[in-house]
């Protein structure tokens, strides 16, 4: 069993009192306290496409689950571009459903159930070269 730990902290002076949140979790298999033992490893891609790019294929685009047919994963993804003028971003999608936008320098850490039709995809907002890094931990 491997032990992989995720630690997040959020701090802000957004209110009159400082906000400081932090949490730590060990990445485990579904419904157990057994640590996940598989990972895609850290991947880095560059794309200038403005079409959807499939990061993990659950069959939304190919009708059959592809080689990345992963269930019960945890994804870290980061847009490595500079923020630039703040107007360029990468849309993170679950199949055709938009989750959110990763502007330059932004990251996300989400669970991913996979399953039919739930490809994880990205769509850059412009033809500017976009560099992303991501890693999936899974069962």
């Amino acid at each position: 069993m491997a032990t992989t730990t995720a630690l997040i902290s959020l701090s802000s002076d957004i209110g009159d009192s400082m906000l400081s949140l932090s949490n730590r979790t060990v990445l485990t298999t579904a419904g157990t306290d057994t640590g996940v033992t598989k990972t895609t490893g850290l991947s880095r891609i560059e794309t200038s496409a403005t079409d959807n790019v499939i990061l993990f294929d659950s069959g939304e685009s190919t009708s059959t689950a592809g080689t990345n047919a992963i269930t019960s994963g945890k994804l870290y993804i980061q847009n490595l571009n500079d923020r630039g003028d703040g107007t360029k971003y990468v849309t993170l999608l679950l199949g055709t459903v938009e989750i959110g936008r990763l502007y330059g320098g932004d990251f996300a850490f989400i669970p991913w159930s996979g399953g039919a039709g739930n490809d994880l995809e990205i769509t850059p907002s412009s033809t500017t070269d976009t560099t992303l890094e991501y890693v999936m931990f899974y069962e």
Partner: protein
Amino acid sequence: MATTTATLSLTSNDILSNSLSLTKSMTLYKGGTTSTALEQMHYHRAIIPTGTNFDLIAESAALADNSNYVYIVNKNTDVTDYVTISINSEIIGKLYGEDFLFMPWNCDLSAAANDSSIEIQAYTHDCTIEYALFHVGETLVTAADS
């Protein structure tokens, strides 16, 4: 101007043959800007009963097409208790006891009503969750007796 910073660290000494250590910090800005930070937030704690898929964060015009960031943690300690987080009935993933997520959220009003709201459903037992939404604005409701 407020400054809100999110930092995530991922570490493992044994999932690969070499140690893995990632750390990333980001400042939460408004979309389309280079330096204007988000200045509004909600921070909630709620008990989600089993059996129903709820809107946790409902879409609204004030939130649309911009930067919003969501943090959700399942505070249950039983590892078999979980919530599903979904958008438009498509499940992003499950948060088991003590799991968390941090993600951008784009409130998209271009299609069917309520289709970009963040939904949550608890399984096994009621789940206590905490969530924070850092956002660009909210639609305030005029008081009925004003």
